[in-house]
């Protein structure tokens, strides 16, 4: 058990578990958290899992842990780990089952006050057009050759088929398509799971949400992002659905043999990995990128569906009902990037598991309009509380491999949340606060109750105090659609 006495305090919001803590650690663990946030996760296994992650071969710098951290499997959620390319390892469990789970934020010029009479209709229509829930199919079903095009092309497939604009693509991480995707390395079973799920939200903590831009903290950056105080915005949170889960399942299984073959010793079998330049590592990277592209296309189709709902509700009634993409970012992904480590530029595979990319100003990967601001960093809060739009900084490049937190982070198990919270009461309480709720399952709603999560404001204060991001705007939900 790791206690606060095992941690070295660097500042009020940064801590370290030194490499000397356990003999099998290859790098230290750096944690961005206040003491309060740290104490909240001392009961679960987050820190032990972070130490386990620090044993992977080829790690550079530190394993970085975000303040929204919580217990996962293999890696903790909220972890960033960079392994040297190409001899370091890639770990499917360090990226997660929901490959390229992420957030897309759309902005509008629709004023909340003017939209108010139409929000019930909007919530209902979003619920119709953005299907969610267990076993629910997406808005389209494609054949296998078409699915393979989705896996290769990601958002570009959506563009070719009229579901995206060039502006959407430019404002998506990696242009909505990871190079090196190899659909031949995605199993038939994964493809079968994916072919009917394009344009679906899924279940669990995934959602489509209409928000009000409640406050703007950096007006200049908010304007560049297209966010206006008092106007509506839309967040879409989902990933690669069954396809990504099957890819991860397949490779966690397959790489069990690889670790024996390459003589890699691990404290947890979920951390299985293979050198990036090995056949096994290459196969996983190809499949993982294909699944990531599927997720980019999925969110793109959902954005198109959301736009349809907005058009149907607001066209002819209000001006400026079009939705504009602010950004789309992944928070479960592995990417080959170049970062400065100990004064040298090093090519690494950055595993982000429940952490978002947060590139600072001047990064060549950002579209021209975001060169001066840094990339939008989207931090959805727990359902019914608040979400934040931040911007990446130079410091995030230096301290966290250009990464930041991805949400509020759970503190309570689903079982306890279900026990403590009644879904129908929570729904009434949310409706009483002006949040329209369209949920397929009341117990699913209860599991996502705000009290099961940390305070998103405190998480955001922490990353901003650590200077790995800066505040741009705070959003408040007005309609939530979930499975």
């Amino acid at each position: 058990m790791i206690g606060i006495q095992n941690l070295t305090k660097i500042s009020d919001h940064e801590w370290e578990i030194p490499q000397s803590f356990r003999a099998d650690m290859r790098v230290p663990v750096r944690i961005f958290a206040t003491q309060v946030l740290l104490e909240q996760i001392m009961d679960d296994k987050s820190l032990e899992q972070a130490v386990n992650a620090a044993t992977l071969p080829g790690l550079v710098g530190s394993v970085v842990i975000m303040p929204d951290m919580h217990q996962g499997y293999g890696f903790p959620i909220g972890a960033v780990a960079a392994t040297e390319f190409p001899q370091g390892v890639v770990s499917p469990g360090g990226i997660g089952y929901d490959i390229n789970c992420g957030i897309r934020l759309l902005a509008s010029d629709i004023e909340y006050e003017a939209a108010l009479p139409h929000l019930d209709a909007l919530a209902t229509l979003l619920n119709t057009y953005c299907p969610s829930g267990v076993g629910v199919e997406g808005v389209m079903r494609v054949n296998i050759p078409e699915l393979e095009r989705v896996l290769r092309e990601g958002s570009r497939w959506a563009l070719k088929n009229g579901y995206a604009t060039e502006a959407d693509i430019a404002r998506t991480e990696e242009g909505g398509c990871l190079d090196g995707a190899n659909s031949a390395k995605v199993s038939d079973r994964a493809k079968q799971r994916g072919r009917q799920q394009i344009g679906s939200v899924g279940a669990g903590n995934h959602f489509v949400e209409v928000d009000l831009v409640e406050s703007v903290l950096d007006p200049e950056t908010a304007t560049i992002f297209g966010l206006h105080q008092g106007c509506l915005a839309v967040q879409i949170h989902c990933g690669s659905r069954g396809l990504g889960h099957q890819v991860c399942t397949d490779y966690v299984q397959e790489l069990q043999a690889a670790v024996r073959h390459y003589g890699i010793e691990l404290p947890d079998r979920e951390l299985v990995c293979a050198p990036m330049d090995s056949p096994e590592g290459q196969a996983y990277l190809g499949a993982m990128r294909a699944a990531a592209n599927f997720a980019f296309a999925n969110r793109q189709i959902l954005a198109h569906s959301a736009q349809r709902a907005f058009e149907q509700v607001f066209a002819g009634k209000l001006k400026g009902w079009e939705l504009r993409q602010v950004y789309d970012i992944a928070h479960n992904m592995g990417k080959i990037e170049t970062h400065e480590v100990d004064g040298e530029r090093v090519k690494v595979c950055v595993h982000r598991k429940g952490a978002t990319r947060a590139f600072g100003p001047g990064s060549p990967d950002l579209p021209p309009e975001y060169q001066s601001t840094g990339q939008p960093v989207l931090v959805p809060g727990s359902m019914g509380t608040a979400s934040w739009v931040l911007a990446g900084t130079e410091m995030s490049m230096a301290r966290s491999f250009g990464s930041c937190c991805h949400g509020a982070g759970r503190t309570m198990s689903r079982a306890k949340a279900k026990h403590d919270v009644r879904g129908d009461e929570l729904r009434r309480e949310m409706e009483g606060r002006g949040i329209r709720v369209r949920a397929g399952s009341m117990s699913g709603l209860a599991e996502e109750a705000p009290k099961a999560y940390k305070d998103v404001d405190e998480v955001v204060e922490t990353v901003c105090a650590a200077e790995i991001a800066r505040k741009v705007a705070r959003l408040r939900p007005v309609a939530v659609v979930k499975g």
Partner: protein
Amino acid sequence: MGFEEIAHTADWALRVWADDLEKLFVEAARGMYALSGAQPALSEVEGQAEGAALNLSKGPKVKRTFEAEAQDAESLLVAFLSELVYAVEQEQLMFTSFQVGMSECSAGWRLEVEMAGAPIVSINKAIKAVTYHNLQIQQTARGYEVEIVFDV
């Protein structure tokens, strides 16, 4: 033999125990289904329960065979449960009876399962994946015991 839900901050976890490995696999399947909302008595009283989170159709039974080989029993357990996850998501099928056979083979262990079940009429919770997190089948006073973490 039996199963119980254990605390996990974000996902679902089960502790399962049984006298032998074969029964452990069956109990793990029943436990996983229970997390999806199946009633504990699902195997005895098939069909629709009023207000239940999960309902199976009363139609004729669907029969399947699952076979796998792996270096260790843990890998077979993940493969078996992953097969059931796939059947729920892709074919809307849930199995209520299992005949499990385990034997040694050149690869390590061989698993053969004959199972029978029925189409799901309604379900509102799903396991998305079965993890290897700290997965270790251990021999204890209760026979064989294992903790399994699921992605939801």
